[in-house]
């Protein structure tokens, strides 16, 4: 009996507690940089596309909403010929971001993506690609990877030693 009265009183006290509700359209909720919203493609610090069209994001995607085709430029850099995300399928799980070896694909704290026409939910590369580096400012795949491109041979990347010449006996 006492506990019943006590719970009545405790509930009644909540009359004077401020509601936790955030009235959304008028008051935007505070979202953190790592919030999983609309997907973007970022560029490296030199302004080149980060995406190397490895297809890992498309493989990781549980709803198969990413489609892309690999091609090469004249320097030997890989990049996607087209890169298409169907946001009407995307579940914003962030697996693509986790799978991406070059930090190219990233999720942003923007989730307001309503469209009247469903076809407008399909984003092409020019819609996805931004000019900045997104959440990771220093990473540049071709500077640290051992892959040969026209202006950088093997062993010339940062923190990389020249390849061992297996034809010589000198240590």
């Amino acid at each position, binding site marked *: 009996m006492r506990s*019943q009265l006590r719970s*009545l009183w405790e*509930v*009644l006290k909540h*009359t004077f507690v401020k*509601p936790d509700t955030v009235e959304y359209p008028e008051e935007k909720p505070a979202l953190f940089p790592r919030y999983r919203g609309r997907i973007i493609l970022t560029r490296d610090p030199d302004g080149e596309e980060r995406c190397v069209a490895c297809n890992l994001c498309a493989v990781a995607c549980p709803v198969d909403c990413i489609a892309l085709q690999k091609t090469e430029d004249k320097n030997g850099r890989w990049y996607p010929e087209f890169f298409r995300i169907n946001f009407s399928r995307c579940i914003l799980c962030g697996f693509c971001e986790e799978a991406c070896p070059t930090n190219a694909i990233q999720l942003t704290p923007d989730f307001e993506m309503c469209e009247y026409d469903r076809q407008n939910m399909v984003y092409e590369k020019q819609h996805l690609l931004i000019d900045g580096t997104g959440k990771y400012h220093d990473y540049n795949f071709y500077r640290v990877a051992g892959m040969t491109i026209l202006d950088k041979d093997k062993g010339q990347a940062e923190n990389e030693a020249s390849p061992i010449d297996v034809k010589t006996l000198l240590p």
Partner: protein
Amino acid sequence: MNTGIGDASDIIGILVSVIITAALLIWVERRLLAVWQDRLGPNRVGPMGLMQVVADMIKMFFKEDWIPPFSDKLVFVLAPTIVFITMLTGFAVIPFAPGVGIIDFNFGLLYFLALSSLSVYSIVLAGYASNNKYSLLGGLRAAAQTVSYEVFMGISIMGVVMLSGTFNLREIVEAQRDGWFIIPQFFGFIIFLIAVIAESRRGPLDLPEAEQELVGGFHTEYSGMKFGMFFVGEYVAITLSSAIIVTLFFGGWLGPSWLPPLVWFCLKTAVGIVFFILLRGALPRPRYDQLMTFGWKVLLPAGLLNLLVTGAVVLSLHGT
């Protein structure tokens, strides 16, 4: 004393205001529960969300009015009207203020008890006619609940009748000029309160409905306006219960003269309604065997004891 009671304006005014109150309670309850759960509740449709009532009603009217093919069709259609009609006609005897009311009836209290008891048929028949296991369980619980609370409900208010010496609700209110009956009849009030909660199938004692266990209990199969009847009937039942509690224990329309009697009555009833909603928001539901045990083994003896002591005191004070 019969002046002005039962005018056409009284009847229409009371009917309209009761129905409007019941409809508004849809909104009031949702807002209040939200406040106590640190939420906001419906606040978008119209000023402060008041038009939510209209939106809900429009939705209910235009919903498909489906009668399950496996049900007992006539009873299925009749059942929801019973709770609504019995609760609404219960307002006939409520003394709103001197000169405001529908009838001045010498056995008003018995009339209220009879009508409120009839409303259980609505639940039992709905549960039976739905021909559905959950509904039947709900109806069964309603019957079990009725046999446990109905007995001490009558007994608990006999103390009030003894003190005032009448079944006429107006005279009961008049008898409280020297002090509300909540003080001499505190235990009677507690028992009666539990009984009316069980009777309006609300709050912690909504066993026949028991959404978490029985889907919707007796109204699982109901939709559209037939469900709306149960829904509004429940709110009319709360209003009626608060009004009768105010009449019996809180001095009805009596109050300091800086407000008219009708306002006092409505204010007290509103507080009662808010308390009903608070009960629903705060207390958990007992098992139905617990409710029956509590009713028969605790509240019935307590009610009888209360009756005995009140009778002894009245006898010793007034003699024979």
